[in-house]
Structure formats: C-alpha cells, structure tokens
C-alpha cells in the first residue's frame, strides 16, 4: 500500500511538467516561453544578467548546485502556480530531497565560516588583550623605563665624546699610518653618533668625511679641531701641524697667555739705507779664522738656494733693512677677496693642504674665542694670529652650538702649556755678581718679547728674531717679530735649507723644498729645477702635497752656518760678523796646520780665546750673540752629533776680565737666562766650530 502511495506521488510530481509543455508559460516581463519554463530561462528572455550557478541547461544533465538544491526546489514549487496538487507533490518530494542534498554542504560551509570568523574573532580578542597587557606593562614599567632611558642617553652621549686617545693632541705627535687610520675611523664614528643625536650636525659630518687629511700635515689640526672638538690641545708640545707658521690656536693662545703679553709695537723706524759695500766672505788676512763679514747692502751675497727654475727665485738684493714679507697686519687683511674669505670661513684649508683663511675674513665666533684673539697684541704679528684662533673655533660653533664653541675656546685657552719653569722664574743674579766679585755684562732677561719656543728646527730663526728685535739704532725698535713670519720669510728666500732624498729624477738624487709666499704653498724642486712629486693620492698616483712638504721642511730642515749670518744681515740692514773655525781643508789651502791634532790644538789654544773675547766684546757693546753648540753637550743627553743655535745674552766677568760663564736663551725648551759655566759652554762650543754671529 505504501509503495503504491509513493509511486503515485512521483507520478503526480511529474505530471505538471507535461501539462506545461502543452500550454507554455509567460514570464514576469510578459515574454512567452516554450516549455520547459524556468526562472533562469525567464531571466534570460527578459534580459537579466545571468546567474551562474543556478543556470540550468534545459537539455543536459542538471548542474549540481552546491547548497542550492533546496532553493531550486522552492523555485519549482513556485512554478506550479495556483495548482495545489502540483505544489503538494513537489513540496513533499523536492524539499526533502533538496534538504538531504544541501544539508552536508551547509554543514561544511557553516563549519568553514565558523572557523574563519571564529578565528578572526579570536584574533581580535587576542589583539585587544595584547594591547591591554602592553598598556598595563607599560604603566607598570614606567618608573624602570625612565632609568633605562637615562642609560641610553648616557650611552649615546658617550659615543659622541671626543676620540681623545687617537687624537693628534694625545701625546703631541703624529701617528703612523695604521694608527692614524684607527684614529680617523674613531673620529668619523663620533661624527656619526653626533649626527644621530643632533641631526643638525649632518653638515659637519659630511665635511669631515669629505676632507679627511693626511696623517701629518697642516690640515690635520684643523680637521681635528672641527671633527673632534673638545679635545685638549695641551699636549701638543710643538705644533708642527702648521708648518707655514701661521700661529695656531695653541701657539696664538700661548702668546696671549698671562705673563706673555707683549708691549705694543710702534711703527717700524725708517732706517737709512747703508752705503753699498761688496760682501766679503773669506778668512781674514793673516788669520786662520773664517770671518764671514756680511755687509747689508750686498744682501748676504745671494740666497743660499739660488734661483730655482719654476720655483721661487731668491730675493733680489736691496739696500737697507728689508721688512719681513710674511708679516701681515690687520689692515692688510681687510682687502681680502670675498671668495677667499668665504672659502676660509667654510673650510679652513684647501684640497692641496694650503691653509686658507690666512688672509680671510674671520668668521663670527663666540665671545670666548673672541677674547682669545683680542688679547694683547704684538702689532703686525698678532694681527696675523687672530684669524687662526677664529678659524679653529668657528666650525665648532656652527656644528655644535655656543656651548661647544665656548668649550673649544676654553680648551684652547686653558690647555695652553705655560712657559717652562725656568723661563718664568726670575733670573737670579750670579752669586759672584751679588757678592761684588764679578760684573754682569749684558742683560740675561733680554728678548722677553721675541723669545719663543721653537717649532721644528727653527732655533736659528728664533735666535735671529731676538737679535732683530733688540736692534735699536735710533732709540726705537725696528720690529718685534716672532719665529713664524720670520721662518716663512727665510724659507721663501732660500735661507732655510730643507733637502730630501727624493730619488728624482734619478735614484739617490736629492730635491729641495721651497715656499712660495704668493701662493703660500710649499713645493719640491729636483736638481734640474723641476717640481717633484712627493705623495700618493687615493688612486695610488703621486701628487704634490703642499702641507706635507711644509711640515717635513720645518721638521727636518734648518739654517746652514753661513745662512744665519747672511739672513741676519739681510733683515737688520747692518754689518754682521759670522765667524767660525776654518776647516782643515781651508787650512791646507792656506798652508797652515795640516794635521788634525795640530788643528785641534790650534782651535783650543788660539781660536777659543779669540772667539770668547769676541763674544764678550759684542755683549759689552750691547749686542747679543748667536752661537752654535753641540746639542747633546748642551742638554747633557746622549746622542749623535747635531748642532743647536742659542743666543748669548750676558756674561759674568771676573775681576781679571775673564768670563766665568754665559747666560743663554735656549728656544728648545723656552729656557731664558740659563747660566752656563765657562767650562761647560766651551765643551759644547768646541764640539762645534766656535761659530758666533753678531751685529757689528
């Protein structure tokens, strides 16, 4: 019975379709369709965009509509229209079938959606919880974080602290290449850290990267001043970093240090040009002594260097005292071209190592730096010194603000080494003089204004500066000059001899360094008069490097014995006596003592008393004397033979008229008024050739 009922149901469900075949159908848009009619067919006929999944191919097998079978069954029930039997039959058969078909699909979909959105929800919840936890942790950790922040700040600050250990100032010496490499990296690291801390430092950092100097050279000091500010310059014992002689901040400040103030210098006195007398440079007639008497008009015969092709020619002789060309006063600085001043202010030196800004306008500086440059001046000399201080301080001002600038200026001022104890202590009168058993000839305290610590091999230059400053023909000082402009002048005119083994143009050929005062650069000239290369660029090619040559010349060059007298005559405009013991070769030519021991005996017995008497006579006339001594004897230090020039300022003379000793100014350690007993003086002097130079 049941099976019959179900069979009838199935037949009933199929019957309406057949009936529709006969009658056709009308869609909602009014279109007439042939059977079989369906919603999709209507949509297609009425111009509806096709639904994809539900499209039924009227002639092929039915598409499997995943999850859409029940909906299709409902559509089919709708198609029955107002026919209850059809509706009943289809509802009874198709809906359960659709549900059976779609149930698993819906279950799977539900699970998928559930998992997806459930997961999403969990994620949101987790995020929210995380934020909450973080906020809570942050709130809890706030006190601790403040402490950590302080540590981080301290760490950052430490990274921008001065790289002192590798600085030029540390130990006052140039490092070798490997050491300098580490130093350079440390300073650049510091700059990077400073930029991180203060982004405004980026410009300085770029400048430092772009202008890395050689390990030794004049630009080294400037580079470190700007890129490694705040490092004390106190330990730079002899600032060779400015070989051209422009006073560095250190040396300038030293000059300005309390107790070193110089009296204002009047304008140079007009000295009448002496009559032109030919120079004589020969042994005095009938004497074995070499007396190089240099008349001023002859301008010291000729500059020792002679005329150099392509280089700086020796100065042409002129009558009268010649002003030192290297001196520049503030008035002459005023006419500097704007471009040069700009370059000076921006960089401090050029790519070839020449110091820019020597004649440039000084950039704005802090009050502290200004006070450093505004200390008591030495006239023209101090006028040249001021821009040097400003140059060094200005970049730091721009880079790190007023505080850093004042720190730099303060370090420059505070770190200046005071003059050595011996020079600051008053020169005590010799006990024999105090007791009235001897008399003092000359003044041991002379030349306080022009006595200076030598920088490089400039002992002769410092000595000449003292004699020039003391020359007082009309009751007025001719000039008061320091070693730097005088060194430049002597170097430019070939009186400062710096020779190197260059292997150019042939192996073992020497070349010689010169200084061009117009370009303010040093250069090397080989024996053929051609410029020689000296250094290596980044690509390994040899290039000229002015700063390095200047440095090397000042450090390893010097004045020859004859050049001392010649140059003194040139600049003083007076007759200069430059005497020394003749060489054996000269004596042999003069058919005098040819034997070495006889020669030595003659020196001790004849020349020494005569030389002493000359020194004493010159001191009695008020003229100090330059003498050359063996340096190891003078300082009681072991070492090979080498000489050193000092100035004899006074003598202690016994009642018998014999000198008991001399007072000397030794520029090697700024020692003024050191008393040397006669025996010690003689020993050091005999180790040389008894050279003495004085203005007659």
């Amino acid at each position, binding site marked *: 019975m049941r099976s019959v009922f179900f069979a009838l149901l199935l037949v009933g469900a199929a019957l309406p379709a057949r009936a529709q075949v006969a009658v056709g159908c009308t869609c909602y848009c009014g279109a007439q369709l042939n059977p079989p009619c369906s919603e999709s067919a209507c949509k297609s006929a009425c111009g509806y965009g096709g639904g994809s999944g539900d499209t039924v191919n009227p002639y092929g097998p039915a598409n499997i509509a995943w999850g859409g079978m029940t909906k299709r069954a409902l559509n089919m029930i709708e198609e029955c229209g107002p026919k209850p039997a059809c509706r009943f039959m289809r509802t009874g058969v198709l809906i359960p079938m659709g549900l059976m078909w779609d149930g698993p699909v819906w279950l799977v979909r539900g699970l998928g959606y559930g998992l997806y959105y459930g997961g999403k929800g969990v994620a949101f919840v987790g995020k929210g919880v995380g934020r909450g936890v973080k906020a809570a942790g942050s709130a809890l950790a706030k006190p601790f974080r403040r402490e950590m922040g302080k540590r981080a700040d301290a760490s950052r600050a430490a990274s921008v602290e001065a790289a002192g250990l590798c600085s030029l100032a540390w130990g*006052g*010496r*140039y490092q070798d290449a490997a050491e300098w490499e580490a130093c350079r990296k440390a300073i650049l690291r510091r700059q990077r850290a400073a930029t991180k801390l203060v982004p405004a430092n980026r410009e300085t950092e770029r400048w430092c990267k772009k202008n890395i100097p050689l390990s*030794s050279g004049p630009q080294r000091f400037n580079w470190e001043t700007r890129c490694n500010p705040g490092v004390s310059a106190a330990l730079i*014992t*002899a600032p060779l970093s400015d070989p051209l002689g422009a006073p560095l901040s250190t040396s300038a400040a030293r000059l300005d240090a309390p107790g070193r103030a110089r009296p204002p210098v009047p304008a140079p006195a007009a000295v009448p040009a002496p009559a032109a007398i030919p120079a004589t440079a020969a042994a005095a007639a009938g004497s074995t002594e070499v007396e190089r008497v240099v008349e001023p008009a002859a301008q010291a015969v000729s500059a*020792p260097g002679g005329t150099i092709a392509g280089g700086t020619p020796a100065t042409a002789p002129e009558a009268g005292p010649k002003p030192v060309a290297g001196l520049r006063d503030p008035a002459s600085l005023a006419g500097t071209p704007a471009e040069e001043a700009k370059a000076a202010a921006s960089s401090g030196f050029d790519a070839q190592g020449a110091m820019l800004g020597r004649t440039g306008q000084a950039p704005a500086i802090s009050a502290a730096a200004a006070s450093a440059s505004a200390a008591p001046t030495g006239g023209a000399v101090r006028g040249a010194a001021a821009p040097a201080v400003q140059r060094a301080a200005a970049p730091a001002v721009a880079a790190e603000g007023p505080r850093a600038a004042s720190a730099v200026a303060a370090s420059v001022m505070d770190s200046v080494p005071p003059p050595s104890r011996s020079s600051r202590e008053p020169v005590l009168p010799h006990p024999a003089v105090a007791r009235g058993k001897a008399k003092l000839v000359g003044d041991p305290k002379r030349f306080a204004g022009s006595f200076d610590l*030598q920088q490089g*091999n400039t*002992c*002769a230059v410092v000595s000449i500066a003292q004699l020039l400053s003391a020359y007082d023909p009309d009751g007025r000082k001719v000039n008061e000059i320091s070693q730097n402009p005088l060194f430049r002048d002597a170097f430019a005119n070939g009186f400062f*001899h710096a020779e*190197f*083994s260059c*292997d150019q143009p042939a*192996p*073992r050929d020497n070349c010689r360094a010169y200084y061009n005062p117009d370009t303010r650069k040093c250069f090397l000239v080989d024996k053929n008069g051609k410029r020689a290369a000296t*250094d*290596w660029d980044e690509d390994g090619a*040899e290039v000229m490097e002015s700063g*390095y040559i200047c440095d*090397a010349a000042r*450090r*390893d*060059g*010097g*004045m*020859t*014995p*004859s050049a*001392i007298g010649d140059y003194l005559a040139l600049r003083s405009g007076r007759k200069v006596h430059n005497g*020394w*013991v*003749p*060489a*054996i*070769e*000269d004596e042999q030519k003069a058919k005098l003592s*040819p*034997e*070495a*021991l006889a020669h*030595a*005996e003659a020196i001790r017995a004849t020349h020494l008393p005569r030389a002493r008497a000359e020194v004493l006579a010159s001191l009695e006339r008020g003229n100090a004397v330059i003498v*050359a001594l063996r*340096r190891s004897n003078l300082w*009681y*230090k*072991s*070492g*090979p033979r*080498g*000489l*050193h020039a000092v100035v004899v300022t006074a003598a202690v003379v016994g009642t018998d008229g014999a000198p008991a000793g001399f007072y000397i100014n030794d*520029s*090697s*350690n700024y020692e003024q008024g050191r008393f040397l007993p006669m025996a010690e003086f003689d020993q050091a002097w005999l*180790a*040389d*050739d008894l050279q003495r130079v004085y203005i007659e």
Partner: protein
Amino acid sequence: MRIQIALCLLASSVAASGAERPALSILADSARRSCSSNIPLEMYQSIPLPVKTEKGLRYRLMFYPAGADDPRAQQREVNEPTRTAEFADKGGDVACDVRPDYPRRKFKKGVPRFAPIGLLMSEPALKLSFEEYSALEREVYIAVEAAADSFTAGKADAAAAQRFSKGFAVLSEPALQGHYRAMAPDFFAWVDKSLKK
C-alpha cells in the same frame, strides 16, 4: 750586550783619561764644516767609516735629518741621509756629494715618501748617560781608526774588528744599518771576514 758595553766603557774610560778628541772625530767635524753650505745645523752625522779608493784610504760619513716633536728629544725618527761626504785620512780633500749605492726604499701607496726610516738611537745607547755615551763615542772613533789600519793592509784582525763591532753595535743608528754597509761595503766585508762570520 751589557757586558760588552761595560767592557767598551772600561776600555774607553782608560783611553779617555786625559786624552784629547780622537783625530778622526776632528777630521769628521772638519769635513762637515767644508760641506756646511748644504748641511743645516740640526742635521745629524754618522760615524765615519774607512773606504779604499784610488786616492788611498779615505773616510765616509752620512748626514741625515732626524726629527722629533720635542726639540730636546733623545730618540728621534731618522730620515734618509741627504748627503754623504768623503775625506782623506789625513784630513782635507773633502767631497761633499758622494753617492754610495744605498738601499732603495720601496715606496708604497699610503706611506709618504719622506716617512722616517727608523730610529736614531739603539736601546742600549738610550740607557747610557751623557758621560758614558761620550766615552763610548770616543772609543768607537779610536776603534775605527785602529781597524782602518788593518783594513788598509788587507789583513784580518779579529781584535780590531771585535773592538769596532762592539761599540758600533751600540752607537750606530738602527735606521741606518743598511746604509752603513752600503757606504763602506769593503770595510764590513773585512769585519765579517775578521770575525769569521
């Protein structure tokens, strides 16, 4: 080494008692004077060593710069010798620009051409006082003179060579060892032969 120095000093102190400067020292200083137009005051000079030439026995010595930041520094950095002088054993007849075949420097990128080539004083020499150094210097000059006689005669003299070597090892500049050998190669060959090295 210390014993050798002590022996040297003992010998030199005996020799130095009441003695004048060695003749060779006077001749060397005189040669410097003859060449002074190209030798600044501060230039250092080496120990003179004998060479055999067509003119007979002569001595050669080097002049070289040695820089330091402190003008009074004992230890300095030596640069290549710029001049080598040669003079007769009796003095005079000075040639100021002799050019021995010195070891050539190997220039390389990054190292400036004028970079120092070494140190001025050896460690033992730095430890000597001024008086000890002066005495040893005198002894070395005398030893060179004594060795020069045997060297000229062409006969091996172990005692003279030994005396010279001891003092020379202390006083000679570490930076210029190769230069000394290049300056007087025959003399060092004689020393080595005498010492049977």
